[in-house]
């Protein structure tokens, strides 16, 4: 079994393991952020470039360093490989660059976005990005598209991670959506707004790292941090029936798959479980979900809200037309934002 050293920690891993998987085996700070890789989706990864690391030594046999940073999610470990992630200033700089690229055309409308609080781009920005934006031009905008009556696509927020395309490819028959156009006007589309109609289409919502694909049955019902996740199951003939219910008071506001600490679903769920079973009596309750630190819904994730507010304020001020989204007194009060919409 090959041995790999990441940020001075050595681990033995099975043949064929990627650097990212090896880092996840070590855990903690050593793990590079991954916005497009998804272990449950074949051929995912390689696109976003947030997981780039430096390979200081290729292998024991060929100790030369790799000339360029590599995508850790798509690079296989070799015996004797030495990798730098957090311990390389070069990697941190390059990653901050990638984060900046992902954000320059992002609307930064977190205050009115349903994904806020469980958005990987928010986490990425706070953990790996810089506070200021250097982008002074108009941001890219798209019209919202309804994909059927349950899913909404807001391309403006999409980071083109290709995960939803792969879900449709690998989980469902006859994919009807994909990427059209190219470059920075590329978009996820059903082209002529065909709806995605099949039993597993709802999973695109769970894999979307940002608020581009959202559950219309949940839209604007609540901020996620005011809901309480509870694990539950049912006897379903289409899927595993293992879900997470998101309660506000007695009411189930939404149903999602259960996600692990990397934000990946544990089991895909069918649309019936996701959209149609919103009563407690539909489910066998297992108990409160363990929520990973990787989300603002875990307590004290961003303990200094003032800093957070100041950052958001500054980013808002940097918007080109002075259009402020949901700012002002009590801007971060979700009820306020909700009402504003």
């Amino acid at each position: 079994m090959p041995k790999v050293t990441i940020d001075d920690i050595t681990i033995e891993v099975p043949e064929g393991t990627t650097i990212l998987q090896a880092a996840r085996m070590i855990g903690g700070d050593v793990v590079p952020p991954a916005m497009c890789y998804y272990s449950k989706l074949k051929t995912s990864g390689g696109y976003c470039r947030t997981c780039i690391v430096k390979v200081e030594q290729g292998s024991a046999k060929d100790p030369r360093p790799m000339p360029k940073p590599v995508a850790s999610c798509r690079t296989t470990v070799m015996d004797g490989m030495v990798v730098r992630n957090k311990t390389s200033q070069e990697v941190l700089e390059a990653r901050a660059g990638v984060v900046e690229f992902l954000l320059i055309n992002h609307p930064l409308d977190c205050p009115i976005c349903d994904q806020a609080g469980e958005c990987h781009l928010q986490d990425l920005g706070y953990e790996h990005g810089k506070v200021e934006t250097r982008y002074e031009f108009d941001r890219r905008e798209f019209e919202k598209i309804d994909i059927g009556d349950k899913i909404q696509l807001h391309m403006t927020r999409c980071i083109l991670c290709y995960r939803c395309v792969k879900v449709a490819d690998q989980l469902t028959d006859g994919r009807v959506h994909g990427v059209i156009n190219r470059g920075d006007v590329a978009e996820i589309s059903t082209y002529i707004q065909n709806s995605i109609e099949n039993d597993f289409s709802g999973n695109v919502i769970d894999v979307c790292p940002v608020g581009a694909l959202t559950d219309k049955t949940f839209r604007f019902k609540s901020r996620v941090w005011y809901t309480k996740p509870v694990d539950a199951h049912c006897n379903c003939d289409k899927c595993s029936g293992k879900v997470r219910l998101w309660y506000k008071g007695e009411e189930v506001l939404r149903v999602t798959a259960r996600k692990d600490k990397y934000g990946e679903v544990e089991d895909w769920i069918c649309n019936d479980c996701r959209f149609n079973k919103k009563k407690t009596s539909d489910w066998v309750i297992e108990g409160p979900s363990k929520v990973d630190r990787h989300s603002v819904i875990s307590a004290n994730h961003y303990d200094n809200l003032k800093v957070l507010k100041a950052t958001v304020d500054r980013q808002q001020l940097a918007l080109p037309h002075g259009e402020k989204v949901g700012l002002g007194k009590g801007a971060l009060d979700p009820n306020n934002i909700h009402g504003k919409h």
Partner: protein
Amino acid sequence: MGKKLLLEHVDVPGINTLSVYRQKGGYRALEKALRTMTPEAIVEEVKVSGLRGRGGAGFPTGMKWSFLAKPEGVPRYVVCNADESEPGTFKDRYLMEKIPHLLIEGMIVSSFALGAKTSFIYIRGEYFYVARILEAAIAEAYEAGLLGKNILNSGFDHDCYVQIGAGAYICGEETALLESLEGKRGNPRIKPPFPAVAGLYSCPTVVNNVETIAAVVPIVNDGGAAYAAVGIGKSTGTKLISASGHIKKPGVYEIELGVPVEEFIYSDEYCGGILGDRKLKAVVAGGSSVPILPADLILKTAAGEPRLMSYESLADGGFASGTMLGSGGFIVMDETSSIVKNLYTFTRFYHHESCGQCSPCREGTGWMEKILHRILDGDGTMKDIDLLWDIQSKIEGKTICPLGDAAAWPVASAIRHFRAEFEEYVRKGHSIKDVKHYYTTQGLPEPAYS
């Protein structure tokens, strides 16, 4: 006169037809290969020749061929990259248009050497009429028994198809080309696996440029050693150069590698000097992707040696003072040209052609274009120049395919060598619009920048 290995008969009337091509010794290499050589022997000759890929990267062709995986019972493919979309490059078109059979012969010989029963020529959509020329040549070859079953009674079967692209630069990147050829969206693949292991339809595939494949014909005819005797050092053989810009005689020239750059620009055999005998300002030596060099550095290396038209000499000094031979798109700019405007045009191109898969290239190319547009408009700041530098450095080396690098290098080199010109744009502010550049000095309308 330099030796011509590819274009010797280019001016012979009717050379595009099979009969004239054969009169001039055409398909001799195919006969020799099928009747007297083993596939391994051909690969060996290509290795000995020192031929390097003419599509831009300059990778040794013999080595690429020897990497081709040969699992039992799995077809192998040869794919010719005729997508030629790099600004400043138009040599493949010339070759295919004038002597289509040279490419067809090269395809059959290469396919025999690599054990491919099927080959494809992937040609850019804008070369529609060239595709027709190739198809006519292929039809003639079938008729003469040079393609199809049991070619020249050798027992070797081969079919060659022409596939027309839809006009995307990115489909020249070999894995995007393969995706497009398979009928999919032309996105570059994430490597590994490399095409030599899993290429077209996941089968082992060799992708080579038009000129590379054509060069196999003289290599088989005269032997690898004879080919290697032409040229200089590791830059063996001849190279087609697409010369354009402010020169008296733009066109496609076949040069022996190693010709001094100065001779290439000024001698009557090649470009014939600068238009209007003005002063040379800069050269982009290998297609829009390679670093631009100012006159002094393109004529002489930083060490003061004469710069030669070869892979090594053009790269001498690294990116600090050198460039690359690339695809051989040689763009000459005289003293009236504006580096900033030219860079804007290139950057706009890369922005337009990015496939959008990876974030640095998707977002960074558009950002650079916007900043350059602002500088050109007289609204730039000194900070914009540093910002441009920083953006290109965050794209370079961090993308899936080399288009990201190709977008970054022109920006980096223009700032490295012509920073003063960017600063002048910033200082002049809006009055920069009154500064005369080539178009205005020639009394031509300025192109619209939008």
